[in-house]
């Protein structure tokens, strides 16, 4: 196990894994993201003959990515994990279609990981004649001075094991690009919606309403304003907890439908998070 000191080293490690019919990877980081992680010295690599495990240190746990020739090679590599990082809580996301991820998730659960959550991807294609009304004055873009309040709001609503809590830097980027919407009641935040647009595709990353403001139309206002602002996007994506029928129903109401991709979050937990 060793610290990754360059993106070239990371690419070389990943490239050393030969492909086969069962080739599997969960390392989908963009080059910019990988460079950021390398610079912050938060990546370590564990290499075995036919697999590479990449561990990224987060605040309270490690996030694990893999590149493996097949599920068997992955299972063998995971079997060596307890020796490498005996004390850590480790989280992995296995993304793909159900038939493809089944053996991969099996490799994790054979090695002391448990299935924690399943997320389903939903999508919405550009609709004709949306007929949106004008901008909702109650839904505004967040300002830079809101950033810590927003992070505190998200901290109180998100489960860090499967919802990647954005850093202050990421929140500032979202604010600068006008992709962080908020609603307020006096000085308090009542709702937050964050999205990210790359070209023709927008991803809805977070859509949360404070517990006290639920069922008062706050979420609907945020969503309608978001869809109005993304009217030119050809495709909008989001991830939803697979067994959250209420959330799925809401998204269907707004024209989203289920994609074939799922994300199984598996955890090797050495501590219990406080509820």
């Amino acid at each position, binding site marked *: 196990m060793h610290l990754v000191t360059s993106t070239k080293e990371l*690419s070389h490690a*990943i*490239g050393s894994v030969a*492909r086969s019919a069962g080739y599997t990877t969960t390392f989908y980081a963009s080059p910019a993201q990988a460079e950021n992680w390398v610079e912050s010295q938060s990546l370590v690599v564990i290499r075995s003959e036919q697999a590479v495990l990449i561990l990224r240190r987060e605040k309270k746990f490690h996030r694990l990515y893999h590149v493996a020739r097949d599920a068997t090679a992955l299972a063998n590599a995971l079997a060596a994990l307890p020796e490498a990082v005996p004390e850590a809580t480790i989280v992995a996301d296995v993304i793909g279609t159900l038939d493809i991820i089944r053996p991969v998730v099996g490799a994790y659960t054979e090695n002391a990981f448990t299935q924690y959550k399943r997320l389903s991807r939903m999508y919405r294609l*550009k609709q004709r004649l949306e007929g949106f009304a004008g901008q909702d004055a109650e839904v505004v873009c967040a300002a830079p001075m809101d950033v810590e309040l927003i992070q505190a709001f998200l901290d109180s609503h998100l489960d860090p094991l499967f919802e990647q809590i954005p850093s202050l830097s990421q929140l500032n980027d979202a604010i600068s690009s006008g992709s962080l919407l908020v609603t307020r009641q006096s000085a308090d935040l009542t709702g937050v919606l964050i999205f990210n647009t*790359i*070209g023709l595709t*927008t991803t809805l990353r977070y859509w949360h309403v404070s517990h006290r403001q639920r069922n008062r139309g706050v979420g609907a206002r945020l969503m309608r304003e978001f869809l109005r602002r993304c009217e030119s996007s050809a495709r909008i994506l989001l991830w939803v907890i697979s067994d959250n029928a209420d959330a799925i129903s809401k998204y269907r109401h707004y024209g989203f439908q289920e994609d074939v991709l799922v994300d199984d979050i598996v955890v090797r937990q050495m501590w219990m998070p406080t509820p």
Partner: protein
Amino acid sequence: MKKVLDILSSIRPEFDFSVSDDYLADGMLDSFDMITLVSDLDKAFSVSIEGADILPENFRNLAAIQLLLRKYGVDT
């Protein structure tokens, strides 16, 4: 070339891949699509694209994909 375009359209039918120079920057392909694309290219052209070649720049546009396939002896 048509075969590659057909494969791209089968993955993302909502986009016209013949008009973009950068599928990733234009949000037409994401990382998960790339993995599907590699698998579909392998099957369609009877090749096995190595992990070291699964890089965003090799799937950025039609020309890049054709160049990659040429490396594996495929003339599209």
